[in-house]
Structures are given as structure tokens and as C-alpha cells.
């Protein structure tokens, strides 16, 4: 896929709340901070990169005050959120853009003869992750894994990774919690746990974790429930950005 459009956006998740159905625009902005370095004798203005980058996201959409909808996701300016979105479909290996963000501004716009709008701007709390979807946003049942559809990176990598779990709904069916893990493999046959996310007891929930060192060629997700119960279901996605 080369050119993509608004129809390709797979999800927009703010700490486990999927607000895609209310969103009309997402804009992410990467900026290298520069400083004017013009000195006496220069005949043209000079600029120098100061070695610091900034990542921000703004979004626009329709106001919706239903549970876990856009108002609930945005109504706390200053709050730290994990934002992830899939600009090019919700499919295995598709782009997964993610970042821990602070909601800098939330605007509710009411105008005569128009639906009420909700807009927000975020600033990243550090770097942002340009990753890939290892597990699509989908409902999953009893303990299992995604090894049948492992993500093949074609080669191992050596600079760690950042992994983000976004869980939009959870029905434990009596179990105590669900634990999701990221696994890697060099041969696509045996898989080892490399990241274990914090046990989730309620959705919406999200977590970003990082790992240093080597990450092998294949990636998969595995999940299990703690305790006893029946017919649990959880809707979640897992994205990974290799360093």
C-alpha cells in the first residue's frame, strides 16, 4: 500500500477507548527544534538544529458523551494517555503509530445549526513509535496466541523495541485478570516471552513497555487468564516498534 486515505484508518485508541467512530481528522506532527544562529557578519539568517525533536497530535471529530467515547477520552487536559492509531488498516503488519501523550488542549465547539464538535491536541511525553500491528484490534476468547499469524520482520533487530497494548473491552467471565505477552522467535517454531504487560482487570486500559537488546525475527502475542472462569472475551491490539 502506497497511498492511503481516511477509509484506511483502522482505529484511533486513547488509553483503550476507541474513538474512531467520532473522529473526522487526525494530524500528527514531528518537529525538529531549531534556534536562530545568525551572528554579526552574516548576510543571511542562519538556523541550527538543537538536537531536540517534538511529536504532537491533534484530532477533530464529533462530540459524544457516551461511556468510553470521545468526551470521556479527552475531558481531562493535562492527563497522560497512551494514544495509538492505525493509519493504514487494522491488519497484521500494518502501521501502528503510538505515543504516550499529554492532552494539552480539549475544545468543545458548539455552533448554530451544526453538530457539536470535539477537538484535542496532544504533546508526546517523549519519543513516538512508528511500529507495526502484531495483533489486530479484535475480540479474543480463551487463552491462546497469535503464532499462526506471527509477524515476520525478515530479520532480527538489535536495538530493542517499544510495545503498546490497547484493550477496549474485557469480560473476564469469573477470571481474575488477563495477562498479555509479547513473544519473539528466531525460527517461527519456538516462541519466548519477551514482554509481559501488567495484568488487566478492567477495560479500557493501555500500556506501553520498552525492551533493550536483540529482538528476533518473528513476533507474536500470547494471552492467558488468571484464576478460574468461563467464556472470557477481550478486545485488544498489540503494536510493536523495533528500535
Amino acid at each position: 500500500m502506497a497511498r492511503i486515505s481516511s477509509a484506511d484508518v483502522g482505529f484511533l485508541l486513547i488509553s483503550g477507548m476507541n474513538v474512531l467512530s467520532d473522529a473526522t481528522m487526525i494530524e500528527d506532527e514531528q518537529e525538529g527544534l531549531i534556534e536562530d544562529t545568525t551572528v554579526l557578519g552574516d548576510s543571511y539568517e542562519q538556523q541550527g538544529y538543537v538536537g531536540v525533536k517534538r511529536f504532537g497530535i491533534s484530532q477533530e471529530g464529533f462530540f459524544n458523551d457516551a461511556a468510553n467515547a470521545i468526551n470521556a477520552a479527552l475531558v481531562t487536559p493535562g492527563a497522560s494517555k497512551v494514544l495509538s492509531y492505525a493509519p493504514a488498516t487494522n491488519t497484521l503488519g500494518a502501521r501502528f503509530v503510538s505515543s504516550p501523550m499529554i492532552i494539552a488542549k480539549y475544545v468543545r465547539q458548539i455552533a448554530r445549526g451544526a453538530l457539536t464538535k470535539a477537538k484535542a491536541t496532544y504533546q508526546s511525553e517523549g519519543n513516538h513509535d512508528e511500529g507495526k500491528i502484531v495483533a489486530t484490534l479484535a475480540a479474543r476468547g480463551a487463552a491462546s496466541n497469535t503464532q499462526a499469524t506471527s509477524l515476520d520482520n525478515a530479520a532480527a533487530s538489535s536495538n530493542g523495541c517499544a510495545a503498546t497494548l490497547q484493550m477496549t473491552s474485557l469480560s473476564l467471565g469469573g477470571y481474575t485478570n488477563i495477562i498479555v505477552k509479547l513473544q519473539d522467535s528466531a525460527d517461527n517454531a519456538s516462541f519466548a516471552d519477551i514482554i509481559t504487560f501488567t495484568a488487566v482487570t478492567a477495560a479500557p486500559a493501555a500500556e506501553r513497555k520498552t525492551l533493550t537488546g536483540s529482538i528476533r525475527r518473528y513476533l507474536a502475542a500470547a494471552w492467558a487468564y488468571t484464576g478460574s472462569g468461563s467464556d472470557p472475551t477481550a478486545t485488544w491490539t498489540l503494536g510493536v516498534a523495533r528500535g
Partner: protein
Amino acid sequence: MAKTKAKQYRALVGLSLPVDEAEYQRVIELTAAGKEVTDRKLVRYEPGEIPAYIPAGSAEWLLESGAIEEVTDG
């Protein structure tokens, strides 16, 4: 001639391993052919457990990555 004892390994992280050599070979062949590997026969091991079977081809990278350690007698 005394039979050589197979090496044993202890899981240091959670592992999902093919149940036996035949399953390992099936997965390797399908992977090499670029096909999806469905209906996997896997065994889950938690840290501290000693897997009944670890493919020789996997043991190498699992050792290197610190996911398993060799169990030595005595």
C-alpha cells in the same frame, strides 16, 4: 555402549514450544514455504520448568538469548 543422555534445559522465561520433532519440522517447512502455520501443537512452559522437548534448532537461539539454561547434574 551406554546411551548418551539428551541435554535438558530449564525455562528462564515463558516458552511456547512445539510438542515434538515432527511438529517442529512441519512448522519449519511451512514457514520456509511462506505459508501460514495453523493448528499448531504447542506446549506452554513457565519459568523454572524443564521442557520435555526443545528442538535442537531452537535450543541454540534460546540459550543465546537467555531464555533457557542447560540443566547440569549434581
